């Protein structure tokens, strides 16, 4: 064994050693592709397993057997599953998600619009919530176990304990119905002025901020606190650094990895997990689009949405991992 190993494995090792970060990113990327492929199989298989097919579900009570048969024939639903899967994947890889069975619109075009809306909402929520959460987390650590810390904790715990639709309804009730200062419903459409768009999404953005804030804030606080208890922080304190400086300069960088992770998770949630918020605020995003499609088994749409959601999750996780490694060089050399 020992005399075989150097010749076969060393070249790879050398590349690894020379470009540890690059090779790690490549490795992660390839792994993500495999993962995406596995997800595509799951999505397709899962949809096949659902009871009822498009033709019957879409036509519902107004369907005649003739119309059902016509639709099935037109969509080629009579062909074997594997044929349809390979065909779909082949097109999807080229960025062609086909046309919606129900509305006959191009799925890619529709998703372009919907994903744009979802990303816009998520970006607005992220721009507010991420700095706020990290800032509040640091503030909580600075005042730990004193009044500001307790207030921050209680409020964030309350926000995280309420289901998002309830927060949404409360905001609608007070700002939409009672005071009438916020725009509701949050319907956005093509050709809407940017300012109107911002006004329209004020309430859903506020809801999302409240929902994700606590999670990120508490993780920031916990991560920094755990670093604070380590020996070098004690040294920093003994050196006579101010508490704030110690947190920002010495504790925060070492706590970055877990914070980045929880931020990435929450960002992913903001894009793919906000179906309820979209429904409550009548916001035309991806979640609503996918739910509509699942209801009538509009396969091309569901598949495309599923794949995109998976890609978003995988991508954000990958970025989080890479960033964590950048922030903490020790992680580059796994033992």
């Amino acid at each position, binding site marked *: 064994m020992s005399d075989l190993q150097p010749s076969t494995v060393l070249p790879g090792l050398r590349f690894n050693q020379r470009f540890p970060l690059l090779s790690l990113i490549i490795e992660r990327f390839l792994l993500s592709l495999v993962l995406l492929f596995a997800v595509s199989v799951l999505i397709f298989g899962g949809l096949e397993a659902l009871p009822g097919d498009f033709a019957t579900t879409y036509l519902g009570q107004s369907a005649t057997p003739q119309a059902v048969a016509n639709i099935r024939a037109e969509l080629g639903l009579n062909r074997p599953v594997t044929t349809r899967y390979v065909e779909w994947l082949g097109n999807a890889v080229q960025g062609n998600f086909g046309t919606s069975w129900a509305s006959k619109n191009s799925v890619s075009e529709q998703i372009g619009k919907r994903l744009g809306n979802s990303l816009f909402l998520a970006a607005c929520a992220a721009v507010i919530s991420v700095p706020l959460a990290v800032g509040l987390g640091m503030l909580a650590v600075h005042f730990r176990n004193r009044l500001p810390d307790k207030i921050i904790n209680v409020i964030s715990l309350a926000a995280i304990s309420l289901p998002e639709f309830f927060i949404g309804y409360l905001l609608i009730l007070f700002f939409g119905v009672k005071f009438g200062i916020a725009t509701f*419903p949050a319907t956005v*459409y093509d050709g809407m002025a940017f300012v109107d768009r911002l006004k329209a999404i004020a309430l859903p953005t506020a809801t999302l901020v409240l929902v994700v804030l606590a999670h990120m804030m508490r993780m920031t606080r916990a991560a920094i606190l755990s670093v604070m208890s380590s020996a070098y922080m004690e040294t920093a304190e003994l050196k006579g650094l101010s508490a704030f400086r110690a947190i920002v300069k010495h504790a925060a960088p070492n706590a970055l990895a877990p914070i980045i992770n929880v931020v990435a998770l929450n960002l992913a949630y903001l894009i793919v997990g906000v179906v309820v918020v979209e429904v409550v605020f009548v916001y035309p995003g991806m979640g609503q689009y996918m739910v509509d499609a699942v209801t009538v088994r509009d396969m091309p749409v569901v598949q495309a949405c599923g794949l995109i959601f998976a890609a978003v999750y995988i991508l954000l996780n990958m970025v989080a991992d890479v960033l964590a490694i950048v922030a903490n060089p020790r992680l580059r050399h796994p033992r």
Partner: protein
Amino acid sequence: MKDYTKHLASRVTSGGLSRREFMGRAMAAGMTLALADQLFTESAMAAEPKRGGHLKLGLEGGAATDSKDPAKFLSQFMFCVGRCWGDMLVESHPLTGAAVPALAESWEPSKDAATWTFKIRKGVKFHNGKDLTIDDVVATLNRHTDSKSESGALGVMKSIKEIKADGDNLVLTLTEGNADMPLLLSDYHLVIQPNGGKDDPLASIGTGPYKLVSFEPGVRATFERNKDDWRTDRGFVDSVEIIGMNDATARIAALSSGQVHYINRVDPKTVDLLKRAPNVEILSTAGRGHYVFIMHCNTAPFDNNDLRLALKYAMDRETMVKKILGGYGKVGNDFPINSTYALFPEGIEQRVYDPDKAAFHYKKSGHSGSVLLRTSEVAFPGAVDAAVLYQESCKKAGINIEVKREPGDGYWTNVWNVQPFSTSYWGGRPTQDQMYSTAYLSTADWNDTRFKRPDFDKLLLQARSELDEAKRKELYRTMAMMVRDEGGVILPMFNDFVNASTKQVKGYVHDIGNDMSNGYVATRVWLES
């Protein structure tokens, strides 16, 4: 009486009384239907519809999967959208349900009701400026009757053998006589499009009071007024915006904060809360939709008429209407027709909850043990509660019902029309003939009670081609009695359509044809500033 009706008429003029309320009260005061109708029309005219304004509707039922092709209209949302931009050949009278002219000016049947000649209106322009011609009409009907079509009206149209133009007239030849042919053409899929929509079914070009400006499926549709509309008694607002709102709470919030003028599908459970909002009016309209408990007449133990009768007598209809519909509905009588249909068979005794009779028939049936009832929340709103209520009322008659809650996903594929005893929902149909043909004819695809009776089928066919109304009414009465006493349907209630608007909205017509003023809400109302 004169003073009273005058008072009513003045309330109509001031917008405080709807057509339905007015008609109900005027008729109760001894007026005839025709007179009351005329008086209402006069009074409502005196209310002077105001033109202008931007009308916003928040509707349930839109989805990203909605298609602009009228052949594929399915959702409530598209139903309403289609009514805004398109016209059918025929409409139904909002109050009597009879056929009234639209793009067809008049019509004439042959003696056996198997050939119909429709005179097509002249001087009507499509939104793109093109004149409406007989060719457009023929092409439209051809598209919806093609056996390869995916049209939702395919079932309605399958009795048409030949569609042809005779000069400027449309001649339809049917496979058999059908006295209801004009009404069938009021189906909301049958929007007349240029060249039948064959060039571009999604173009949304019609002859309706509004032109479609923008459309995003499941999100929003906007319209502007068609200045060249061929009618002056509709299309009062300058522009219409229909927003898809599938969340019930969102609809209520939008209405009570004044962001929209009208919402559909108000939940009976929350309607009392909504009533408290100062600027809101509840619009409840009697409908033809009904909630049913269906038994397969050919499957044991339901193949025994005594057991079926026992289960019918064990249904407490009044409680169902009160608890499940919140009072917004009418009790049913175990046949799928109510007084909103033309030629409704009057005077049939109302079946009431009678545990003793139920127990008697149950004993006579010889059945013992429990009866399995499958239900799901998707069957109709409150279906699971209704099943449990029914279980309770059956208990008093000594009948043990076992309620099984099925998953909503796949209920229509795996349970309804498959399992022998389940809960379900039927929407109304324009005519009695259609209702019976869809669900009670032996050969019907959706004979979900497996009611297979050659004598019933014969009556149905006989009534279909009968042009004499009195004779027809008698035939429908006999059929209703058969379904009521021997059929497999337990029909506890007809649900009202419950919608709501702000008080700004005037001129709402309580149309018995279908929900949302038969889809015409946007074309019929106006806004008081």
